């Protein structure tokens, strides 16, 4: 069972002359295929989208939005203060009766049009998202934009069937004005997740994108207008934490929906206590990804890669805590490390790229601090030696072996391409370890045995459990957490509850 680097050729000496291509190539590198950045159609400066118009911020302040893969400035984005937020909330309040009382089929038609326009402009949106966020074009093209369009399509279909979502005899009514604060990891997709069910339910919205990734939300404003969403129904206020706080604490907002870190989620929940405002939170995670010894290992490796290196690991449901049955640990780690050699890190606009840039300097510093913590705690840091670009924020795909449950890298959310590998011996131990977390957003299981998979699903305390796959999303499937991963569900008809009375 010893590992052999280069085994001997079983053939005896050749009786023929050597074939001219007998020697293997050192490498066979794929051709680069760079998407055209000019498709993003960037403006030099973006104002706020309030009441169907571009409005300059009251304090005349703008901040730079940069491309994290080059550190070059892409554009300037308005900084919304309390006055601007107030203006946006008033616009949403004024627009509420018209939107709520519009024939449902008419609302549906508009939302279908949004979905169609997202598809028509998918290439432009994908390039813009990749420039602003740093994610590979392959993902923005095949995941973000596609799912955003699907979300509007899905909820457009519910618009005239809302009464069927609630228990028989109850009439569905919108909550009112919704304040929605979204993160930077899936900027356009999170905007779609928040807006589509709210609009289908007849609510009006004030959306605040993350300060590092405002551009696709602002482009979405153009699309909403073109699709026929009336002025004031969706307002977009850009800015940082204080803009979000102004929105959350505005007295005339009926509901807050937040996706982001658990720390901020807790602050929001505290500040909303006693106000009567409704709240849904989609927060952090440290998902357990369970690999049993009867799993199809090669496909499990693909699932692990998809689970932790998708979107540079900046995914709240990332499979960041790998729990491997001890009897397959050696094989699995061997396969995983070999597979990691094939991960291409670099220009996110290259269609071959698998791993793009980390979204911000701040996030990169956080990830790097965890790399140090992991080494300091005694875990072994492994992964390919990648050549990283000179400018921009980059982190090579990494995994830690020899991780024990007490280490910080095993319990805290890193939100980067860093995998912690732990082991278990029996299914019961796997469950115990998987559930022993403050979080409970998602989990994954790899096993060939259906009965085992179902038993695990019953016992795992996580909002989403993937079996023999990972990080698969669909608009019809509810998503949300247990414990400190938040409450409320997005997606599916469950995703309408938070937006209906």
């Amino acid at each position: 069972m010893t590992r052999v680097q280069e085994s001997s050729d079983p053939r005896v000496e050749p009786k023929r002359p050597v074939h001219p291509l007998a020697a293997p190539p050192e490498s066979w590198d794929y051709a680069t295929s760079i998407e055209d950045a000019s498709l993003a159609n960037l403006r030099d400066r973006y104002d706020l989208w309030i009441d169907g118009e571009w409005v300059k911020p009251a304090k005349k302040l703008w901040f730079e939005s940069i491309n994290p893969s080059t550190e070059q400035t892409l554009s300037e984005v308005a900084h919304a203060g309390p006055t601007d937020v107030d203006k946006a909330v008033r616009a949403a309040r004024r627009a509420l009766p018209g939107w709520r009382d519009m024939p449902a089929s008419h609302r549906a038609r508009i939302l279908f049009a949004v979905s169609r326009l997202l598809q028509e402009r998918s290439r432009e949106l994908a390039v813009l998202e990749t420039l602003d966020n740093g994610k590979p074009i392959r993902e923005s093209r095949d995941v973000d934009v596609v799912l955003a369009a699907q979300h509007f399509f899905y909820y457009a279909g519910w618009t005239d069937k809302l009464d069927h979502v609630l228990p028989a005899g109850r009439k569905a009514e919108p909550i009112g004005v919704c304040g929605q604060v979204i993160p930077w990891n899936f900027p356009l997709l999170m905007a779609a997740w928040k807006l589509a069910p709210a609009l289908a339910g007849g609510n009006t919205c004030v959306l605040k994108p993350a300060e590092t990734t405002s551009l696709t939300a602002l482009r979405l404003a153009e699309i909403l207008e073109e699709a026929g969403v009336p002025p004031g129904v969706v307002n977009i206020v850009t800015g940082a934490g204080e803009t979000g706080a102004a929105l959350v604490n505005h007295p005339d907002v009926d509901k807050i929906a937040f996706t982001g870190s658990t720390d901020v989620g807790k602050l929001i929940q505290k500040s909303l206590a006693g106000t009567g405002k409704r709240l849904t939170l989609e927060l952090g995670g440290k998902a357990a990804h369970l690999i049993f010894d009867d799993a199809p290992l090669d496909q499990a490796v693909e699932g692990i890669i998809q689970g932790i290196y998708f979107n540079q690991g900046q995914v709240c449901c990332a499979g960041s805590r790998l729990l491997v049955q001890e009897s397959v640990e050696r094989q699995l780690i061997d396969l995983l490390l070999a597979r990691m050699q094939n991960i291409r890190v670099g220009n996110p606009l290259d269609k071959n790229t698998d791993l793009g840039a980390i979204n911000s300097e701040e996030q990169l510093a956080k990830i790097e601090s965890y790399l140090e913590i992991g080494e300091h705690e005694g875990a072994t840091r492994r992964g390919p030696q990648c050549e990283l670009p000179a400018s921009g924020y980059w982190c090579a795909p990494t995994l830690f072996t020899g991780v024990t449950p007490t280490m910080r890298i095993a319990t805290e959310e890193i939100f980067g391409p860093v995998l912690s590998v732990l082991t278990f011996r029996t299914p019961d131990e796997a469950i115990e370890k998987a559930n022993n977390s403050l979080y409970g957003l998602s989990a994954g299981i790899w096993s060939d045995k259906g009965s085992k998979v179902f038993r695990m699903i019953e016992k795992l305390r996580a909002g989403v459990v993937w079996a023999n796959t990972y990080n698969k999303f669909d608009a019809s499937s509810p998503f949300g957490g247990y414990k400190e991963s938040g409450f409320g569900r997005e997606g599916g008809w469950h995703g309408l509850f938070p937006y209906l009375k």
Partner: protein
Amino acid sequence: MASQPSYHSEVVAPSMNDLPPLPSLSVDEVGLTARAAELGRRSIKKATKLEGIRRALSMVDLTTLEGADTPDRVRRLCRRALQPAADEAGLPPVAAVCIYPRLVPVAYKELLGSPVQVCAVASGFPAGQVPLSVKIEDTRAAVENGADEVDIVVARGSLLSGDWQRVFDEIAALKEHCGRAHLKVILETGELGTFDKVAHAAWVACSAGADFIKTSTGKVAVNSTPPTALCMLNVARDYERERGRRIGVKIAGGIRTSKEALHYLVLVNETLGPRSLTNKWFRIGASSLVNDLVRQYKKAMHGTYQCADDVVTD
């Protein structure tokens, strides 16, 4: 897998081969198919494409396996094998000429002193439904007449009925009669039904002494597909890691375009690595593929397709 443990016999000689080959040889069809398709989207252009086409051509086992094959037909095929296109000096000869045993002396004479190998299908190709003694004689005759490589079919009836021992024994027996010739074992994956079965069959073939594992005969409805090839490449990689012997992989049947061939090369590149991008470790059993490789090479070199007859076909 080598010998099934017998719970009835008194003595079971312990050996490494009695252990299961891996903790798991199971394959998830959905994940495998998705991965194989994803690898078909790598960007193969310009220099990458030229290099890929030359490599693919050097891996071809130029094949004719018809009842209508004649010595003259085989002679023509051999000339093609040695020089796929007279007007493109940059193109290498193919790896081998693959024929029925009766025609081996013809090919042997034509290919003497060249780097192109003579490959014979034997063991009652393509169904393999003949007694072992006939399979042995078939194989022995091919080798004696000068075959460098022998492609045999596994007893897939035994394989489907679960008689792994017989599958193993037959391969091991034929390996003994191959002498210095190289043994390629055809699994006929299109008849196995699941990828679990493909992986197990591949592992048994490796442990019984195969130098190469090969997808198919080209004589059934489903032949080589990218997921099948990926599955077998994974087994070859696992076998080397666990047992220390390197195994080659041959795909065959239905591969007609350069695009398909390059897709398979990507599969090799990303499972076994570039060190296996030679005809020593990867082969493509095909006939008309050579025409398209030459045509696409000319297009990549000169920028245009000339006309339908710009490639001499045979």
